[in-house]
């Protein structure tokens, strides 16, 4: 019944030596762990030469235009912020930054751990969950962080004066059936990588490091398919998706000095996430001609109807009555390609999702629609409103998502996401 100081009394789950141990510095808590990890160096070499690392640092966040080819896997996770003071919010953003740097760079188990990131107490639970083995490859990992209007509206943070213009709760559009369990949240993480285990690992690391400061409210994993057989990958309706997207130099995505937004937001972007179920069984009972007409492209090639290659540009000017591409085709309503609608274009970077089964045995699958723009109303909402009564509406059910301000990027080695909020 008693323990002896030299012989552990019982070789149970763990063995103990009462009175041993080092007087190691104590950090364990997110807030303290934070202080340790904020000093990570941006120029660390990637853990593996073969797996590409996407730079975390830059004037804008990764996961939008960087890397140029969207990664294969993603997790969209929405959190409640539990921080109760501005200082805690700052700590939270510092911890997230440190995690983003670490995960983007990768970790080699053999590399020396900087003293300040050593665990609280030697011999505690492993620092690495082991899901990726001992060496963590960068695996094209990107973390993109967004904040919802609720963070600016929370008096505890005193950020009302810094609230970006036009950042609201997600509008409920005519065909939406928002499910509170999948809608909103204070903070969005878009985690992307080329493998599912990396995405899982990253979320697990991040939630551990932010325990008590963030509470996971909903999350959905998505995949970006391989090209079949070539070109742009297909969505779950079988159509190539992501063909027409504005280039970075068209300046439709990043908030700039002239955008009329608070200075701190320059280099940021508005993120719209829409969780849209696709009734795939129903869709599969529709003829190909009707499907093509609803989208406005040929399923086989991805080319606009009447054209040959997916990169061919639809010519609506010479098809005013929709003989070729119906006037209510998705691509035509989404982007009529007129002078008046040109500025409403946006960057889409969605992922397919495949969850469980519904009440009636149908598959719960669809699209995690993610778009990036400098103005939600003028771009996303204008596009969405044009699409309200498109024929495809019958085959889809938007049920969740949210609006967020994607924070500007981090350039300084000791900088952190959202730093401008605290200036």
């Amino acid at each position, binding site marked *: *019944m*008693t*323990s002896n*100081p030299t012989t*552990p*009394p*019982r070789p*149970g*789950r*763990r*063995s*103990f*030596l*009462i*009175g*041993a*141990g*080092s*007087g*190691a510095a*104590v950090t*364990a*808590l*997110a807030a*303290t762990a934070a202080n340790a990890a904020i000093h990570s160096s941006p120029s660390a070499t990637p853990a593996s030469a073969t797996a590409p690392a996407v730079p975390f640092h830059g004037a804008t966040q990764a996961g939008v235009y960087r890397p140029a080819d969207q990664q294969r896997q993603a997790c969209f996770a929405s959190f*409640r912020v*539990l921080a109760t003071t501005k200082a805690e919010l700052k700590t939270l953003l510092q911890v997230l930054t440190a995690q983003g740097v670490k995960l983007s760079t990768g970790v080699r188990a053999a590399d020396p751990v900087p003293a300040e990131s050593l*665990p*609280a*107490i*030697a*011999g*505690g*639970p492993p620092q690495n969950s082991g899901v990726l083995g001992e060496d963590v490859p960068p695996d094209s990992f990107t973390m993109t962080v967004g904040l919802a209007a609720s963070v600016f509206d929370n008096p505890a943070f005193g950020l009302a004066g810094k609230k970006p213009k036009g950042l609201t709760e997600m509008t409920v559009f005519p065909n939406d059936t928002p499910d509170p*369990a999948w809608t909103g949240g204070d903070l969005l993480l878009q985690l992307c990588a080329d493998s599912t285990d990396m995405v899982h690992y990253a979320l697990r690391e991040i939630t*551990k490091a932010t*325990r*008590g*400061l*963030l*509470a996971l*409210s909903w999350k959905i994993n998505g995949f970006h398919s391989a090209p079949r057989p070539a070109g742009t990958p297909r969505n779950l309706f079988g159509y190539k998706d992501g063909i027409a997207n504005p280039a970075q130099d068209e300046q439709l995505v990043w908030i700039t000095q002239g955008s009329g937004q608070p200075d701190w937001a320059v280099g940021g972007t508005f993120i719209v996430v829409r969780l849209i179920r696709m009734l795939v069984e129903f869709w599969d009972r529709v003829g190909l001609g009707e499907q093509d007409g609803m989208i406005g492209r040929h399923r086989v090639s991805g080319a606009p109807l009447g054209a040959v290659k997916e990169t061919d540009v639809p010519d609506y000017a010479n098809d005013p009555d929709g003989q070729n591409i119906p006037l209510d085709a998705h691509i035509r309503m989404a982007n009529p390609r007129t002078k008046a609608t040109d500025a409403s274009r946006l960057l889409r970077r969605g992922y397919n999702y495949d969850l469980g089964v519904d009440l009636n045995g149908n598959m719960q699958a669809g699209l995690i629609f993610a778009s990036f723009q400098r103005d939600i109303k003028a771009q996303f909402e204008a596009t969405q409103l044009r699409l309200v009564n498109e024929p495809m509406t019958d085959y889809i059910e938007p049920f969740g998502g949210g609006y967020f301000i994607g924070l500007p990027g981090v350039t300084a080695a000791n900088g952190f996401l959202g730093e401008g909020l605290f200036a």
Partner: protein
Amino acid sequence: MPDSLPAPAPTMDGVVAAYRNYVSGQLDTLTGQALSLKASIGNNSLEVARRQWLDAQMTWQRVGAAYGSFGDLGSAINGLPSGLPKGSADPGFTGLHRLEYGLFHGQGPAELAAVASKLYADVVELHGKLPTMELAGSDMPLRCHEILEDSLRDNLSGNNDQGSGMALALTSADLDGTRVVLALMRTLVDTLSPGYTAKVTATLDRLGNALARTQDQGTWPAWRTLPLAARQPVTGALGAALESLAYVPALFSTDD
């Protein structure tokens, strides 16, 4: 909440002795509570019995009997229907949670009187055996974090709930038990890692505050009836506490 926390013990032997003493006191209390509960059920005062069940269950939680420390008697007092062939109708399902099940599923003296009598007898028996029971010093650091791990795994998950919805009350009693074990080990912990109990205590305080804020004029709401936004401060604070408690066993470990 125990009125005051016990004084720290200077050695692990001292911790075990003081913990045994503390458990004995809790079992004294539980003996009285089990007797009252038995009487109320016998007299068909079920409204009173439901309140008394909660008091008794909370006393048991405060003991901090994480992961089966009291063997078969522990299961008889605090067992669950899982794993029993007939589930909640199984005769092997006894003790506090069996009473909870009955009291919150319309049962009365006919079904519960015998269960209450057996509970009382089991508590008395455990109390009698306590002085000679094996309590290992090596369990104490583990207990420090396992009690609240059980809150998350068993109470707040709803797995333990037999109908009362009182996961918050049980978790607050688990927190009390954790504070007691930590207080007993304070000297040992702080010798190994100066200031660590203060760090852990700060997270426990935050959890205590989050729990208290869910109360409505001293009563606990049913856990499942709270919306996610009201549950998150509790589970968030609990998560943060668990991350810091996870390092307590490491202080005493020879592994690694």
